[in-house]
């Protein structure tokens, strides 16, 4: 990979995304973890821009950072006594870490062409293309049309809106004072 502006930007954004992600799972203070989550999500939005999907990048910032991450931070602020827990990981964390690392190594061995270069046949998938066709100029317009096209994604689109509605009502019911929360006795 030669060092073009694009590849440098890619490396920076990847570092932000992965570094932010690592800090999210290792930071003790959950409020900070929420901020690192935002950083990581911002990195992903940058990757979307690099992948010529600016609309998704915008939605990523509006929905993920502007709504989901802020909600999570609100939850952190509502449960204040737990921002400084004595142990942030459970007892099996070493095993879990090994599992995650193993999973990552397995994935990378399939994805990257490294094993092919080492002479192992029939293992790596062929994901080496680096000059895809150009994206059509009106891809955002096309995405908008596809989402409400009966032959394309209209049904999933409607189902998604019903899902959002159901989630909203469910969330309101769950935390409504004196309603669902009081049943179930003294648990």
């Amino acid at each position, binding site marked *: 990979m030669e060092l073009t502006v*694009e*590849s440098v930007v890619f490396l920076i954004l990847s570092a932000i995304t*992965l570094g932010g*992600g*690592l800090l*999210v*799972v290792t930071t003790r203070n*959950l409020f900070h*973890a929420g901020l690192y989550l935002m950083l*990581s*999500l911002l990195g*992903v939005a940058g*990757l979307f821009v690099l*992948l*010529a999907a600016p609309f*998704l990048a915008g939605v*990523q910032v509006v*929905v*993920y950072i502007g709504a*989901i*991450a802020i*909600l999570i931070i*609100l939850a952190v602020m*509502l*449960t204040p006594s*737990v921002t400084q*827990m004595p142990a942030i*990981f*459970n007892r*099996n*964390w070493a095993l*879990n870490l090994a599992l*995650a690392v193993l*999973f990552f190594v397995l994935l990378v061995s399939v994805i*990257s062409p490294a094993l092919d270069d080492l002479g192992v046949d029939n293992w790596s998938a062929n*994901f*080496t293309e*680096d*000059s*895809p*066709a150009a*994206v*059509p100029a009106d*891809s955002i317009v*096309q*995405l908008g049309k*596809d*989402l409400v096209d009966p032959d*394309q*994604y209209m049904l*999933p689109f409607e189902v998604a*809106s019903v*899902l959002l509605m*159901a*989630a*909203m009502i*469910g*969330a309101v019911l769950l935390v409504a004072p004196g309603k*669902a929360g009081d049943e179930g006795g003294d*648990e």
Partner: protein
Amino acid sequence: MVPLWMYLVVAAGLFSIGLFGVLARRNAIAILMSIELMLNAVNINLVAFWRYKTPVDLSGQAFAAFVFVVAAAEAAVGLALIISIYRRRQSVIAEDVNMLKW
């Protein structure tokens, strides 16, 4: 351009980080954050495959948009659950919520 597999490696890394967080963190809110990381890793994959394999057909972007919707719904319900558990048990530690275990 940057080869496709590099994007996939970043996504795999983010997914593994999220996986570790889900498995190892004790705080339910931290687990939720890790799930968001995993969903984002999936989105990177969807968009990267769209860009490199089928830039004309927009199914990858449409799928990513649906993942956004699902993530928003999941965060809303998940946080509502965590808050209501916290109200009753003064705890958001996932191991403490084990009523259904025995």
